């Protein structure tokens, strides 16, 4: 049997006959992933070149060689952490605290929202609307200028409390959506089987709902890491703050910002690969 490539005789009867070979070659190249990749690389290089050109015109002095020492530096045969690594550790510390607190606060909010209680659901709804309809930055200023003097906490914990206050609303919605998305028939079957509400949750609903929640919850951790950069506004010494300080000291704006952005990208992109993997795994299982 002839394959599609060799059937020139029949192709003559089609429209191909009218087309010059160069055009055909061009059309075929449009479908190749390699050609697209090369095009993309060229495009990226062009953008980069334009940026470099602009920087050159400003008389910008590139000092990439100065960046590594701000991660790690060797002093007297000992490796010490540079500001960027210290900042990264603070960012991770904030993220870790926030994940724990956010899960707890989100769970309580979700339960209150779904409860029979009048004031409970009203409180939860009010809280969600309040957070949803004001900017995170304004919330941060509110916490920094108003709440933290009242409670007497330092800026590090102000940052954590504010981020928790903000992120918990998303977690609450994820948990609620996960529970509600369990098929109605499952609730009815649990009721019909005479399970109490608690047993229905424990043995029927949650085992099905939790796997559904995991990917969006991981996605929320990505958002948490992204949003945590905002605490630099109140001078918590996280990665972004360290980056800004470094720029103030060394004037290497481009290098430092690109490096900081790169570090964030590495964290978030690797987490999003994890989410994709998780989603795939859960889809396969169910």
């Amino acid at each position, binding site marked *: *049997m*002839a*394959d*599609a490539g060799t*059937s020139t005789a*029949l*192709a003559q*009867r*089609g*429209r*191909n006959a009218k*087309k010059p070979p160069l055009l055909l070659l061009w*059309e*075929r190249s449009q*479908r190749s992933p390699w050609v697209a990749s090369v095009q993309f690389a060229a495009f990226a290089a062009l953008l980069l070149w334009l940026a470099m050109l602009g920087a050159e015109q400003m008389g910008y002095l590139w000092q990439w060689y100065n960046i590594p020492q701000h991660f790690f530096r060797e002093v007297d045969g000992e490796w010490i952490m540079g500001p960027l690594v210290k900042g990264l550790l603070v960012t991770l510390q904030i993220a870790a605290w926030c994940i724990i607190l956010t899960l707890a606060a989100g769970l309580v909010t979700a339960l209150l929202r779904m409860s029979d209680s009048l004031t409970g659901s009203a409180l939860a709804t009010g809280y969600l609307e309040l957070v949803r309809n004001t900017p995170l930055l304004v919330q941060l200023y509110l916490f920094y200028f108003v709440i933290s003097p009242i409670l007497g906490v330092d800026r590090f914990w102000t940052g954590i409390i504010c981020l928790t206050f903000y992120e918990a609303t998303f977690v609450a919605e994820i948990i609620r959506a996960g529970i509600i998305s369990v098929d109605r028939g499952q609730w009815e079957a649990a009721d019909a089987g005479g399970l109490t509400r608690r047993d229905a949750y424990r043995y029927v609903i949650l085992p099905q709902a939790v796997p559904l929640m995991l990917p969006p919850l991981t996605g929320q951790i990505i958002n948490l890491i992204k949003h945590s950069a905002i605490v630099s506004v109140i001078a918590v010494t996280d990665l972004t703050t360290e980056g800004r300080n470094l720029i103030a000291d060394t004037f290497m704006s481009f290098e430092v910002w690109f490096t900081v952005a790169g570090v964030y990208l590495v964290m978030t992109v690797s987490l999003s690969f994890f989410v994709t993997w998780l989603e795939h795994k859960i889809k396969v299982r169910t």
Partner: protein
Amino acid sequence: MNESVTAPVIELSGVSKFFDQFQALREVDMDVRLGEKVVVCGPSGSGKSTMIRCINRLESHDQGRIVVDGIELTHDMGNILAVRREVGMVFQQFNLFPHLTVLENCTLAPMRARKLSREEANRVAMEYLERVQIPDQANKYPAQLSGGQQQRVAIARSLCMKPRIMLFDEPTSALDPEMIKEVLDVMVELAKEGMTMVVVTHEMGFAKTVADKMVFMDHGEIVEVAPPQTFFNDPQSDRTKQFLSQILSH
């Protein structure tokens, strides 16, 4: 040799199609002559829908060649468009455009692809809507029609492009039983007028009245090709016999 009189308008030779590892079509060979009515049947997953969808390149084949009306289907978009304008297709799920009225559904392609004026397109559309006996629904939206009516609109929509060939992909499978007949009636009419048709269906009554040629597929292969009398009364292959006994015993 009557081949010179009626040369094949659809010619599949050695067509194979893969979905990842799964081979949906295995070296399928088939000819359809002008005016011929071909009914394709077979168990679900046998590749009959895939084959018909390859003919107007809703799926691209991986090996072999498909020539429709003298045009070989390759990656060339111009060829594909040319073939699609000659070949009408009716789907299991109707696939009417929900945001357009019945009339607009029918005039869209003639106006955009054939560059007809609105008046001309409307005239043609009304003519075909009358043929499928729903001219009075012209200004309704698809959601307001019954399944049978929607499928007849879908047929009219295809006919408005004045195709030389019509493909039907299980046109009655998504219909309630009482609506199947009204759609089959339209198709029988169309067959009588001499339209070249390739129909994937399980409606064996329809096949017996209309078909010039029966094609039985299983596991991506064409198992048997025969005129309806032979096919129903004296099937050659065991797989055909088994299939027929299952489908006709109900």
